């Protein structure tokens, strides 16, 4: 028993689910559900269909190169059965799965961090544009002018003191 991958969406196909199609060039395609099967029959390219994993990996939205993903690659060398290896493998699978999930999550978080920065800049621009909704245009002008005049007078007095 083996959990296959759907050709279109790369999701898991559990036994008893989905459909398999064998083309005349002897290439077989597995689909997890009729949605993927129908899209395939419409000749859609999974690398261009936005909701598939193939698209996400091809457009850099998800982790592609990682050691944790190497474990999933299919090997064509059968391993001689050994109970110890079997037990260790099961434990290793759990740990590798954990690590893989964390790395994938971190990759996505890092990708989305840029958004926070952009949002902040956007917010600043928005506030500057609509400042008239928060503060009246000539709100503090009178006080500012007064403060300026006071400062100027002070400067004049200082200069006069210096001359003297």
């Amino acid at each position, binding site marked *: 028993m083996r959990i296959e991958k759907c050709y279109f969406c790369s999701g898991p196909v559990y*036994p008893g689910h989905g*459909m*398999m*199609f*064998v*083309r*005349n060039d*002897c290439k*077989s395609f597995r689909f997890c559900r009729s949605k993927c099967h129908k899209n395939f029959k419409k000749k859609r390219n999974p690398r261009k269909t936005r909701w598939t994993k193939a698209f996400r990996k091809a457009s850099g939205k998800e982790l592609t190169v990682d050691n944790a993903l190497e474990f999933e690659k299919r090997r064509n060398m059968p391993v001689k059965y050994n109970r110890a290896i079997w037990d260790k493998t099961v434990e290793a699978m759990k740990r590798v799965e954990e690590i893989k999930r964390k790395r994938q999550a971190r990759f996505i978080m890092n990708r989305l961090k840029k958004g926070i920065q952009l949002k902040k800049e956007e917010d600043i621009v928005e506030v500057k544009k609509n400042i008239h909704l928060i503060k009246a245009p000539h709100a503090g002008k009178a006080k500012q002018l007064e403060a300026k005049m006071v400062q100027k007078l002070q400067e004049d007095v200082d200069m006069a003191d210096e001359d003297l």
Partner: protein
Amino acid sequence: MALSLLSRSLAGLLVESSSITHQRTFSVSAVAAAIQKMTRVRVVDNSSLGNTPYHRAPRVIHVYTQNGIGKVGDKVLLAIKGQKKKALIVGHKMPGDRMTPRFDSNNVVLIEDNGNPTGTRIKVPIPTHLRKHEGEYSKVLAIASAFV
């Protein structure tokens, strides 16, 4: 009493209306056909009879089942190159049982009367659920190189 009369008349009405609707409807039985007489098939082994070109495609002229419908694992009689030959169905375009693959063409393997295959190799993938007829078709399974 009035109620019973009412209910009876209502029932009568209902019966009449159902009969009317019954007359209007027609029965549609799904034709669960896969391979039947006169279907053109594709021979997938490497026998000379199956691979030499002929101006007419190999056709099914008889299906050895109770109803005339042939699914994977059924024997059929083919007309190839003006001769009659038995064959085994190894894949059809019609979606079959769950967990069985669907093929892009109606594939067939030429067979003798005793069940021995005519060719020596089958390159096209063969569905694994043929293995349950291990006794009859063991020789055909033996010459298959790919299973699906």
